[in-house]
């Protein structure tokens, strides 16, 4: 059976790993290549690198990092952050990334999704969506969650699927950094409305939260950062717990 996937996310700034709590107050959690290898050994199914560098110069550092990760790591990985063109993606894929994730640039110019899917195939196009629930409605946000838009989460998710996205990485800004669990109701709605995989993100604090994201949220994969980086939840223990709950995982 196809397994549920556990995906550590490494936020990258100037070639180093950082993790934002509610997208601010960054803490340092080490060398991305070393961390990536460690995660691969410890049973992570995939990795996501999110480049939060502010400058073009720093993004070039990330391209070099991608090459090093591809050389040394034997599981798939996605690179996101600051990607706005076919050319950006071409360089990252040539450096060995398996998938790319786009977010703000796809909101600003949705045709980007079609261009990427047509040129590289849907399998490598992840669309990341940051959304916040305001008065019962899920609104998509831009630029790392700082700028609200008028887009409805579910409408936008359907649109990106139609445009050729291969996966959706949904981050609930209400949950991100809280360690109180994932946005399971919204996840479940997304997962049932769409026919592409949904990656749950934002809110992981305990093993039970992952169980809930898969059982209640019907997510195909779950992503987290700090609970993994700081060793709060070892991935092997997490997978054992999932297995004990009859969730198919690779152990």
């Amino acid at each position: 059976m196809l397994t549920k996937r556990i995906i550590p996310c490494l936020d990258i700034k100037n070639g180093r790993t950082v993790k934002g709590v509610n997208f601010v107050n960054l803490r340092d959690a080490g060398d991305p290549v070393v961390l990536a290898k460690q995660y691969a050994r410890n049973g992570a199914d995939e990795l996501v690198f999110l480049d939060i560098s502010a400058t073009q110069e720093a993004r070039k550092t990330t391209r070099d990092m991608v090459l090093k990760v591809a050389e040394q790591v034997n599981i798939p990985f996605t690179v996101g952050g600051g990607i706005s063109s076919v050319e950006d993606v071409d360089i990252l894929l040539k450096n060995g990334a398996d998938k790319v994730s786009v977010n703000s640039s796809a909101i600003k110019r949705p045709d980007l999704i079609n261009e990427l899917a047509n040129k590289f195939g849907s399998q490598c196009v992840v669309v990341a969506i940051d959304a916040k629930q305001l008065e019962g409605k899920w609104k998509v946000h831009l630029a790392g969650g700082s700028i609200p838009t008028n887009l409805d989460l579910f409408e936008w998710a359907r649109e990106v699927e139609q445009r050729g996205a291969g996966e959706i990485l949904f981050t609930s800004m209400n949950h991100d950094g809280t360690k109180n669990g994932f946005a399971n109701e919204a996840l479940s709605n997304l997962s049932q409305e769409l026919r592409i995989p949904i990656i749950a993100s934002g809110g992981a604090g305990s093993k039970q939260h992952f169980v809930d994201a898969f059982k209640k949220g019907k997510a195909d994969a779950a992503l987290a950062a700090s609970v993994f980086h700081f060793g709060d939840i070892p991935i092997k223990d997490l997978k054992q717990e999932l297995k004990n709950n009859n969730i198919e995982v690779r152990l």
Partner: protein
Amino acid sequence: MKVVIIDYGAGNIKSVQFAFKRIGLDAALSKDSGTIQQADKLVFPGVGEASSAMKKLKESQLDLIIPKLKQPVLGICLGMQLMCNKTEEGNTKGLGIFDVSVKKFSNQLNKVPQMGWNNVFDLKSKLFSNINEQEYMYLVHSYYVEQCEYEIASTNYGVNYASALQKDNFYGVQFHPEKSSAAGEKILKNFIEL
């Protein structure tokens, strides 16, 4: 040992080269017919869309060279699918090495593409020496090869399908050994030792 990865411009092939490097082997990338014909082992990778990949093969006349090769050839993912008769993707005629066709998964049963780790079972080749039945491999695909006489591994995604094929010196795997952790690297080692 000269291992050549056939570089016809389809998809991310550096990952395959890096995986060989991790098991201690320098594999070359080439689309030169002479280099390809003289290799000891060949890898035929592929990521992307079938009809455009087939067009690229034809441009380098690799569609004529590959079926005539006598040394072990390992098709990966789309590479394996292109070694079949035809695929529903872009209604494309393949290389015809494996007399079987490639179909699209129904998204009524499951999400398409299948993306992630799934088991391989009924393993029937030296390619899988010391690989456990039900081992997990990483797969990303929307099209699949039906169960057939060439099948050396099966996987279930709504239906049981052939996740690896063999005929004479030709091998194909639907999964990505280069991305399938230590077990995937073991399969690449086994291929080198064939």
